[in-house]
Structure formats: structure tokens, C-alpha cells
């Protein structure tokens, strides 16, 4: 009998030791390492700095590179250069730095160079409120760079999911050869939650496909069915050319309309042909919902609380939460909102998701789409959403 007790206690203690209090930014850094990121370049900015701090400690221990650059522009350029040399590369920043990175994000997209940019959103415009939350960069993460390129943007709502989506961001960047943005809320970046470590060990890592053809046959942007072509790195005998100019399949600049059209189609199709792989959306109590809330990130957590409070009062309310916000989950949203009477769009901005929802549900009157906005640096509270639920019910 005593033996059994001892064993039980040990197991209990072990289990307890595997639960740790972890910060959102730390979860991102940990996810990056577990996804195989071996190059990080960054510049200090609140509220993302912890990611750089943690990786400056962790990466050298693994023989991987960490460099603090002179600004955010240099940071993203360095990770693109490193990625072309074969690295899994990441940078992390916040609003002002994200703005500075936009040109090079477009470069990563047109050159189809895998990399990940983490943007821990803070209140803007400009310097705004550096330590306050905002969801002001929803549209910037889609349209921030000049020109016309599609985007993959992921957006977690918990510490554990920050870890998972950091890994997914790296995986998708490698698979689709593009710059993937991971958005995080200021509150989430700094928030600590209990996380079970074993939960952080179940992940799979995707690496880019290497060419097998001889160098003279190699095309840096070769066509194949899924628009995902093998990619060589500098120093491996392929000696390819990379340019931000419009280019043909070999990578050399072109001004021929047909070749430019091919390039643009390729950039678009690799996203649009793979929507099922890219889109992730959580449906929370939507089965019988008459009122649906659409919210992402930290605001979705307020919405979940509001749903629970409303349900306790017998109101049929549900929540739709996209984990991938770009490409926007058009079909899923259309389908899930088909049978609801009212959609409440809750967001910490002046109405960015609102435009997407309005675009998708044309059959509803404007009065059936109700915004809940907040731009004062504070979170939308569950009570604020509950009030609106009761108003529209």
C-alpha cells in the first residue's frame, strides 16, 4: 500500500512539473525553435522584444544565428538573405517596425522566399500606445506592401495556440515559399497562461523541397500542379538569380506580358488553390445560434466569455473565430453565417473585419451586421458584447 502511494505521488509531481506558466511571446519563440528556425534577425520594439530576447539566448546554444540589426528594414532583409542561403528564418516586430518591413515583405513574396514575420500588434497609428492592445493591423497584414500579392496571416488567441501557430507559420512559409505573417495581440504577447509541456511536443515540421534536377535544368520558379516547386539555396551548385523585378520561371527579369501574367497567376494560385490547407476556423456554440459573433485573437476570448454568459441566460449565441485570417475564410464564413439572423463583428479597430463580413453576406441588411469597436487601448469586455447581444436579440 505505501508503495502505491509513493508511486502515485511521483507521477502526480511529474505531471505537475510538466505544467508551466508561459508567456505568449515565449510560446512563439519556443514554437520557432521547435519548427526548426535557425536564423533570427530583429530590432527591439515593444511589445515583441521578448521573442528576440529569448531567441538571442536559445539560438546560439543550437549553433543557429541570432543577429540584432540596425533597424527593422535590415532585419527582414537579413532573414530573406539567410533564407535564400537555406535558413529557416524569422523576425519579430510590432506596428512601427511592421510598417518599415512592408517593402521587403513584398520582395519575399515576389521572390517566393520562405520567411516568417511576427507582428505583436500595439495601438497606433504611429507610436500610438506601445503597451496597449489593438487589432489595427488586420488590413495592413493583407495589403501593407505595395503591389498586389496574396498573403498568409495566422492569428492565435491563447498562449498554447501561439506556440502551435508559430510552428504552422514556419511550416506554411516553407511549403508555400512565401512570407507568412503571425499576428499576436499585445495582451497575448505579454500574457501568461498555464501550458502543459507534453502538449507542446506534438508537432510536425515541414521543410522546403530540394531540387533533384541537374543545375542546368533547374528553374527557381518551376511550374507544377500545386504551384509549389522545389527550391535550391545559395552555395549548393545551382547558381540561380533572384530579383524583385518581374521574372520568368528561371528567375531572370522579364517584361513580356505573358511571362509577367504567369508570374502573377502563380503567386495568386498557390494561395487560392490551397484554401483548404490554409484556412482554419473555430466554431464555438454555432450549432443552433441565431446570433453569431465574428472575432479573432484576444477579442475572440471576450466573445467566448460573452457567449457563455448569454447561453446561461438562454440566448442562442455562437462565435466564429478564424485562426487563419488571410486568405479570408470566405466559404466557411458564408456557410456558417447562413442561418443566423444577426452577426456581431467585434474588433479593436474602426471596422476592418466588418468590411469582409459585409462583403460576404450580401443577403442580410446592414442592420443585421452589428459592429462592436474599441480603439482606446483597452480590451472589449465580455459585458460590452453581452449588452449588444441583448440589444439585438
Amino acid at each position, binding site marked *: 500500500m505505501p508503495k502505491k502511494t509513493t508511486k502515485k505521488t511521483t507521477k502526480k509531481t511529474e505531471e505537475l512539473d510538466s505544467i508551466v*506558466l508561459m508567456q505568449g511571446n515565449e510560446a512563439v519563440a519556443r514554437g520557432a525553435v521547435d519548427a526548426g528556425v535557425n536564423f533570427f534577425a530583429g530590432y527591439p520594439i515593444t511589445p515583441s522584444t521578448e521573442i528576440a530576447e529569448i531567441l538571442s539566448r536559445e539560438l546560439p546554444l543550437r549553433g543557429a544565428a541570432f543577429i540584432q540589426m540596425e533597424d527593422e528594414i535590415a532585419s527582414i532583409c537579413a532573414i530573406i538573405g539567410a533564407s535564400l542561403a537555406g535558413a529557416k528564418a524569422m523576425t519579430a516586430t510590432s506596428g512601427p517596425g511592421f510598417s518599415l518591413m512592408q517593402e521587403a515583405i513584398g520582395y519575399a513574396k515576389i521572390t517566393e522566399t520562405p520567411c516568417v514575420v511576427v507582428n505583436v500588434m500595439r495601438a497606433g497609428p504611429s507610436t500610438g500606445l506601445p503597451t496597449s492592445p489593438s487589432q489595427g493591423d488586420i488590413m495592413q497584414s493583407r495589403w501593407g506592401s505595395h503591389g498586389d500579392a496574396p498573403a498568409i496571416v495566422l492569428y492565435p488567441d491563447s498562449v498554447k495556440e501561439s506556440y502551435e501557430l508559430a510552428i504552422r507559420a514556419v511550416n506554411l512559409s516553407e511549403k508555400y515559399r512565401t512570407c507568412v505573417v503571425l499576428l499576436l495581440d499585445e495582451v497575448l504577447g505579454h500574457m*501568461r*497562461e498555464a501550458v502543459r509541456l507534453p502538449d507542446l511536443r506534438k508537432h510536425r515540421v515541414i521543410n522546403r523541397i530540394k531540387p533533384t534536377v541537374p543545375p542546368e535544368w533547374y528553374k527557381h520558379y518551376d511550374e507544377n500542379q500545386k504551384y509549389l516547386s522545389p527550391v535550391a539555396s545559395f552555395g549548393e551548385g545551382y547558381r540561380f538569380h533572384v530579383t524583385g523585378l518581374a521574372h520568368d520561371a528561371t528567375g531572370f527579369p522579364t517584361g513580356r506580358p505573358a511571362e509577367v501574367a504567369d508570374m502573377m497567376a502563380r503567386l495568386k494560385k498557390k494561395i487560392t488553390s490551397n484554401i483548404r490547407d490554409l484556412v482554419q476556423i473555430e466554431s464555438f456554440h454555432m450549432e443552433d445560434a441565431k446570433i453569431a459573433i465574428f472575432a479573432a485573437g*484576444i477579442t475572440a476570448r471576450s466573445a*467566448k466569455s460573452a457567449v457563455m454568459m448569454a447561453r446561461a441566460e438562454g440566448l442562442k449565441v455562437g462565435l466564429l473565430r478564424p485562426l487563419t485570417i488571410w486568405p479570408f475564410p470566405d466559404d466557411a464564413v458564408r456557410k456558417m453565417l447562413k442561418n443566423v439572423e444577426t452577426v456581431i463583428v467585434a474588433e479593436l479597430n474602426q471596422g476592418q473585419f466588418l468590411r469582409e463580413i459585409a462583403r460576404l453576406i450580401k443577403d442580410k441588411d446592414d442592420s443585421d451586421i452589428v459592429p462592436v469597436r474599441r480603439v482606446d487601448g483597452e480590451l472589449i469586455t465580455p459585458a460590452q458584447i453581452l449588452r449588444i447581444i441583448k440589444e439585438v436579440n
Partner: protein
Amino acid sequence: MSKTYMRKEIRLSGSGGQGLILAGIILARAAVQERYRVAQSQSYGPESRGGASRADVIISNDDIHFPEATHFDVLLALTQESCDKYLFDLKDKGILIADTTGVKNIALDSSNIYELPFTDIAAEKLGTILPTNILSLAFLVRKTGLVSEASLRKGIEQSVKPHYIKLNLKAMKLGFKLADDYGKTD
């Protein structure tokens, strides 16, 4: 097996440099020891020292969705400003713990208010005001019974630098004693 839903909202407030975020982390870690779900968040200004600072800890036996404290079960106020700012978001039966070194006026009468000059006591009894955060947190823990002494001790050990553990455990013990002796006349 059904269980009653429990959600406790604790706000630790004061100014930057008083170690409130660390106190929040310690309380959260202590709650993890007791298998609660926890979320610890904070709000602060640009200052490392001074300026308003607060740390929220939500302790629950179920999923924690909204991570910030809006109606507090417990409020710790180390400065007049923070006391004034958050006092009226206390729940009806919420507990206020005020450091009277900084808080001179409390615009509320309630039997759930505990007042002690924690900063002065730390200076006098511990020789430094640095562990005021732990001193007042320990007092809070004893008065509210949120977590056990063992859990709080573990939270401290997991969170402070090794050479500060001794001092902070001393502060913890003193905090417990202050709580036990509170209201007793000599």
C-alpha cells in the same frame, strides 16, 4: 461529476518598480501548483520605475476566456492613485488590501478592507522595501486562502533569482504573520 464554476479575479496595482508583475507571476505559479487554470496579464506604461502598473491574475477551475480582471474578488493597492482608480470595480464582497504607506484615503467603508503600511514594515523588519510585493502578496494569500503556503513558497522559488529566495521567503513568513495578527491588539 459536476463542479461549481469558480473564477477569481485578482488585481495587484501600484506603480512601476514595485514588483507587481512578479507578484502576479508568483501567484499564478502558485495557482498552477493547485491545478487551477490561470491567466496572468498586465498593463503598464513606458516607465521601468514609476507610472501606473497593474497585474491581473485570473484563477479558475474551468477555461478562462476573457483574461483580464474587470470585477475584482481581491484588489491590492500599493499607491493612492491605484486605489482610487480601481476601488469601485471591487465586487460587493471583494477584499481590498491597501498599503497605507502610500494609500492615505480609502473612499469606501467595508469590513473587507485591510490596511497596513507594508512598505514601512518591509523597511523596518526586512531592512529593505524591495520585498514589499511578496510581503503584501503573502498577506493577501493568507487572508483570502486562494492558495496554500506550500504553493506560494513554490511559486516564489520558481520565480525569483536564487540569491533573493531567502529574503523573499522571509517576507512571505512575515506577511503570513501580519495576516494572523491583524486586528489583534497587543
